[in-house]
């Protein structure tokens, strides 16, 4: 039956090439599309978690708190020790975020002054990504500050200029003078106009000795990004360890919008490729249906010599499957080769700015999972079956005598 189907499919070479080609294109498109979207999503998670960590630890009441004081984790050192002891191999970033008034010689602005201290690797990465000129304040320094470029411009200060920070009503000095040592370039201007970085000690001296407002836990995965399961498990351990005083959130909980967007991508991709397959399927319907009506007499003879309606319907379905699976095989091969050719990374020429603006990585590593290949093949098979439905129904209703009398 399959041999017959195969030969019948190639009876009309051009038409079958077009329909099979459409299926192949749908398969290639779906694979490449899956590959890129997955790469983009992984990249977004990478960018996001390198900025904010896989887990964030804040004061339990930080979200409702009105005052700066209420957001402080005062026993920061203890929490840190406990974490590092329990969770081996993680990297920490400690932040003290102080709302403050910041000014140059002539102008002032409200800003979020962040004291930051971190694992060396995290610091290097931060510097590499965001330092546009100069450097970050040296760890432990009391008198160095780095500003977002936009903020520096607004304050009309340049590298080496003095910068003054006022954080009244806090437990520290409440005011201090710094030297501008670095300019930072963030993709989002709204963030850049607010950004001021001190060393953690510098910020603690200014506003809250010994305290932090936020601890980021960065998990190191063996390969690629840590799985959601690992993140959740680590969260559970951290929560058990640290108790009610603090709130431990995964990056998904801390950035619910991004997480929701990422979760939406899979269904959106699936729906998208579904429609591509619907289009290819219409061409398959056309091909199978035409080849049926052209062969009505032949089907009449097949019925006459004893094929029943189910047999004839199966023959039509077999032709559809043969055509679609041939196209799918070609598509899988072509799509696989394309994706393999990008294994070393794909960088859209001229789009670096745009990608960064949207928090996307500059270099994408498209890849497809076995599940995505399975989804693609499943779509193809459903396309074949759906495309055969109407022609098979028509074939199943043929009466042998009428079919044999049919004018070709």
């Amino acid at each position, binding site marked *: 039956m399959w041999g017959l189907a195969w030969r019948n499919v190639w009876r009309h070479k051009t038409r079958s090439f077009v329909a099979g080609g459409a299926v192949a294109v749908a398969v290639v498109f779906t694979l490449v599309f899956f590959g890129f979207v997955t790469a983009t999503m992984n990249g977004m998670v990478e960018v996001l978690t390198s900025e904010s960590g896989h887990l964030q630890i804040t004061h339990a009441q930080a979200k409702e708190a009105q005052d700066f004081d209420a957001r402080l984790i005062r026993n920061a050192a203890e929490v840190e020790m406990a974490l590092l002891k329990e969770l081996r191999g993680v990297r920490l970033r400690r932040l003290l975020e102080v709302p403050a008034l910041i000014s140059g010689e002539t102008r002032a602005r409200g800003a979020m002054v962040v004291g930051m201290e971190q694992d060396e690797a995290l610091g290097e990465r931060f510097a590499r990504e965001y330092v546009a000129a100069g450097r970050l304040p040296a760890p432990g320094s009391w008198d160095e500050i780095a500003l977002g470029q936009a903020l520096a411009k607004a304050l009309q200060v340049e590298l080496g200029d003095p910068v003054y920070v006022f954080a009244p009503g806090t437990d520290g000095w409440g005011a201090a003078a710094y030297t501008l040592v670095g300019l930072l370039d963030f993709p989002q201007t709204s963030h850049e106009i607010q950004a001021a970085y001190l060393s953690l000690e510098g910020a603690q001296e200014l506003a809250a000795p010994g305290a932090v407002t936020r601890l980021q836990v960065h998990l190191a995965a063996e390969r690629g990004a840590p799985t959601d399961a690992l993140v959740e498990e680590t969260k559970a351990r951290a929560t058990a360890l640290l108790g009610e005083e603090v709130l431990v959130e995964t990056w998904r909980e801390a950035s619910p919008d991004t997480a929701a967007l990422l979760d939406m991508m899979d269904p959106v991709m699936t729906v998208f490729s579904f429609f591509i397959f619907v289009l290819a399927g219409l061409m398959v319907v056309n091909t199978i249906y035409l080849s049926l009506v052209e062969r009505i007499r032949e089907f009449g003879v097949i019925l006459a*010599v*004893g094929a029943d309606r189910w047999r004839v319907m199966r023959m039509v379905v077999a032709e559809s499957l043969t055509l679609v699976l041939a196209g799918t095989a070609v598509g899988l091969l072509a799509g696989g080769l394309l994706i393999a050719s990008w294994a070393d990374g794909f960088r859209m020429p001229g789009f670096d700015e745009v990608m960064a603006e949207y928090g996307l990585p500059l270099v994408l590593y498209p890849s497809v999972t076995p599940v995505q290949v399975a989804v693609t093949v499943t779509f193809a098979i459903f396309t074949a079956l759906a495309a055969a439905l109407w022609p098979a129904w028509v074939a199943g209703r043929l009466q042998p005598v009428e079919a044999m009398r049919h004018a070709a």
Partner: protein
Amino acid sequence: MKPILRAVRLTKVYENEGVRTPALQGVDLEIVPGEFTAIAGPSGSGKSTLLHLLGCLDKPTAGETWLGERRTDQLDDVSRAHLRLREIGFVFQAYNLIPVLTALENAAFVLELQGVPREERNAKAMAALEALGIAELAHRRPNQLSGGQQQRVAVARALAAQPRVVLADEPTANLDSKAGLSLIELMKKLNEERGITFLFSTHDPRLLEHVKRIIRLEDGRVVADERVGAA
């Protein structure tokens, strides 16, 4: 001998867009195993219709059809298909063969529908092609065969599954008279040597010289049923 095919007051009226065409008007007929019978009659006399009804290809308007002990005119489509597959061989006037299959595959087609394993059906189909003298053409496609050769493949297909009766509707109509004659002679030989029952229609009077029985139809009625002394 008990009849293999039987028609009782068989009536068929075609209705097309309100136009009623009576094609058969009360035909009574019996065919016993081993007969070699022609249905003769002018165009439109109902030859094809009669063969279709006897061959379970279509349902009568009234009357009965029997295949051996079994009444067939009431059966549903699928049961009739199964009967055709197991019990009846068919040869039609033209377009008998599946163009993408070789002669051998065409001859084996009914056996394939029956679910006979490949080896066995190829052996049987080959034997049938041999019986029709076209074994050497086994691997040609229909478009590489002459009309007469194509019809022999069709007869081989009908015979390969060893049906109880072979029905042929104007099997020679598309052939030149020489090819037509030799096809009929072959069929007759198979009838005589193997006792295969043939019932075929024709409007070629020269072929009638070779048959044992002639049923003449006119306007959907049997007007003569002659047993010929020949052979």
